[in-house]
């Protein structure tokens, strides 16, 4: 079982390579454009992988299971929601870069609703606020941000409810 799981990522990567090969035969120009996009993204992503690695190591070193469960476990209450909303907002880089850390936290007993709230609040990025204000206006941006923060909690609770039934 464990062995099968460790290969699933490689199967996925193999599938993506296959999609590239198929596209190469259909339209080779798209491949060079995709690879350009890939090289630009990977340069931006490397520092974030390093940041996630440091955070994972620091979490392993400083935060023990008991503390994590106290602040982000089933009985964490409003503190847990605030921590995950703030962490979601201040975290940088693409969403998928945070999956390894979240996976580790989930294994250690962090509430699924809090993980979902973290992922939802990744939509609110402080450095990007001037950009969204420029396109859609200040009032709209404030309302959207507040609505998303509040509904991320509702979504987290719904997810926990659904998962607890299965």
């Amino acid at each position, binding site marked *: 079982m464990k062995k099968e799981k460790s290969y699933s990522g490689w199967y996925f990567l193999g599938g993506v390579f296959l999609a590239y090969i198929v596209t190469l035969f259909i339209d080779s120009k798209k491949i060079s454009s995709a690879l350009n996009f890939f090289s630009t993204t*990977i340069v931006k992503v490397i520092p974030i992988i390093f940041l996630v690695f440091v955070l994972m*190591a620091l979490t392993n070193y400083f935060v023990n299971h008991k503390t994590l469960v106290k602040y982000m476990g089933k009985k964490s209450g409003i503190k847990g929601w605030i921590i995950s909303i703030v962490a979601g907002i201040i975290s940088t880089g*693409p969403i998928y870069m945070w999956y390894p850390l979240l996976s580790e936290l989930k294994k250690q007993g962090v509430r699924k609703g809090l993980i979902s709230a973290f992922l939802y609040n990744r939509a609110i990025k402080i450095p*990007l606020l001037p950009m969204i204000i420029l396109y859609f206006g200040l009032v709209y941006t404030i309302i959207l941000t507040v609505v998303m923060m509040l509904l991320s909690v509702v979504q987290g609770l719904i997810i926990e409810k659904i998962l607890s039934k299965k």
Partner: protein
Amino acid sequence: MNTKLKQSVVKAGKGIWSSIPILLGVILLVSLISAIIPTSAYSFLFKNNYLVDSFIGSSLGSVLAGNPITSYIIGGELLKQGVSLLAVTAFIVAWVTVGLVQLPAESMLLGKKFAIIRNITAFIFSIIVAVVTVVVAGLI
């Protein structure tokens, strides 16, 4: 280096290493989709109907992925082309909160059930967030 620190670093390294094929796969997939679908093609999908357009906006935002700035730029262009603010809001919210491209990676690392339920609820919530935001913004 003390043993606990060494163990913490090795554990983090193993966690990152096991995620590398998944992360690489997602970045390659996002790159391929961005290259295949031209941004100019998006406005043709909208039908000038609030309900249908917000559903289309959410669907489009769910399929596409990338930097949120790109979603603001596309959203701004869609607004100029007459697409409703409701549909554009659903689009920019779904862009970041729903990830069909990232779904395999999310399933492998956070669990299949969690990933599917999270993405379905995020899709529904992108429409709810859009309705609430536009209604509240309209009242002010």
